């Protein structure tokens, strides 16, 4: 989310234009991603889900629930705040504190980073740095609900809910109720 929002001028509001995913679409995409995760990792052993603050957190929790429903094994689920690791500290206004909480030691684990929107890739770069301070994961995979393109770094997702071509001046809003595309409107 942080990444999606970083380009937004302060004091403006999101003006929705069209809904591109309904809540049912979001649910189906997450179910498919859960199956892909299980297939690729041969089950849930060693898996840890980590949701990026704030947009990725509820998605990660939902994925954890789905993995448990499908496979019957609980998967640890944590949160990660990357504000302190961004490469544009000093260029953006200071965000308020979000909390990092990693429930298990990551050494030897397979971490699945979960975020709502993948855009420039800078949030994910910061997240990789942040993760490294919590131990040496055996592998890190990336799951996003929406990939909207415009990458500025060599980063690609492993699991994608929907590829959504956008212009850079558009905004994508994600919730469990669906995905909406829109633009920046007038003053708040």
């Amino acid at each position: 989310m942080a990444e999606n929002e970083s380009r937004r001028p302060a004091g403006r509001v999101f003006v929705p234009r069209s809904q591109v995913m309904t809540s049912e679409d979001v649910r189906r995409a997450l179910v498919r991603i859960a199956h892909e995760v299980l297939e690729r990792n041969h089950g849930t052993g060693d898996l840890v889900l980590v949701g990026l603050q704030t947009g990725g957190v509820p998605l990660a929790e939902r994925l954890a629930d789905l993995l448990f429903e499908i496979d019957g094994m609980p998967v640890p689920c944590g949160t990660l705040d990357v504000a302190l690791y961004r490469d544009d500290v000093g260029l953006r206004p200071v965000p308020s504190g979000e909390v990092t909480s990693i429930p298990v030691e990551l050494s030897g684990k397979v971490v699945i980073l979960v975020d709502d929107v993948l855009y420039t890739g800078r949030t994910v770069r910061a997240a990789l740095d942040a993760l490294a301070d919590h131990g040496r994961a055996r592998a890190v995979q990336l799951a996003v609900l929406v990939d909207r393109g415009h990458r500025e770094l060599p980063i690609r997702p492993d699991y994608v809910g929907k590829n959504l071509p956008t212009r850079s001046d558009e905004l994508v809003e994600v919730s469990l109720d669906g995905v909406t595309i829109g633009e920046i409107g007038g003053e708040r």
Partner: protein
Amino acid sequence: MTKRQSLLSVDDLGRGGIERVLELADTFAEVSERLIPKVPTLRGRTVATLFFENSTRTRLSFETAAKRLSADTASLQVATSSVQKGESLRDTAETLDAMGVDAIVIRHPASGAPRRVTDWVDAAVINAGDGEHEHPTQALLDCYTMRETLGLGRGSGGFEGLRVAIVGDARHSRVCRSNVLALGALGATVTLVAPRTLLPASLEGWPVRVCSDLDEVIPAIDVCYVLRLQAERMREALFPSLHEYRERFGLTEERARHLRPGAVVMHPGPMNRGVEIDDAVASSANALVARQVRNGVAVRMAVLYLLLGAPVEVGLDEGLFGAEPELGGRAVGFGA
């Protein structure tokens, strides 16, 4: 370089700013608990400490905070510096500024010295104690410690209704002044307990009640904040003897027994054990002295992050502390 915003007084923050520092400090407290308690946030920034008075914890705390944020630190040892050759405060500050430091953490025996320094430098100036005026980061870490220990966090009603007694040498205490301002802004009820000779010359505008009987106050408070008796600042006889001071205003073992269950004891340090606070009280389970020191690092990380982590222009135009975090528009994502 454009001028950075400074932190000179608790009044610079206001209620919104104080609450923002306290919330950010939660993030940094988590960082401090990690296996590797360090984040790259302020890489490339330099924080200089310039202390014209002695200090153990404040200076060390600021330097630790800066290092955990990956900032570089420079520590000017006044005793071995050109200050001893008669270099003025202005020239010393301008020298630091010319070297390109981003923040100057200053402690000075003269009230108002940090504010004067802001006229001469572009760096952020952080008041780490000026004379009998203020010590804002101490008040912030004290509020954070109360909030943490007494469960006054988000959604709890906060400091409203919290009863704090500040006991002792209020007259010479910058810690007292900053705490009165901060606790007042947050809505706590503050009672000053001191002999008349150790009260500030004027209490006009202070949101406090005054009482000279500690025994009357003790059973009705949530926090007993004991101030250090500042012998080094006293130029006259303000009370008959240390013994008599302890008898009437010291937090003795006997008095501490009358504290309510769950009430806590705080002290900014350094303590005069056996004078304003008994040894056994200072080492008891409800004394938060060590916790205050630990929280000081997280709170100072939050302050450094606010002052040095934001764009300079935002600091000047919008005010870092008052405004809500401007991530723009309404939050995108889940959450109610």
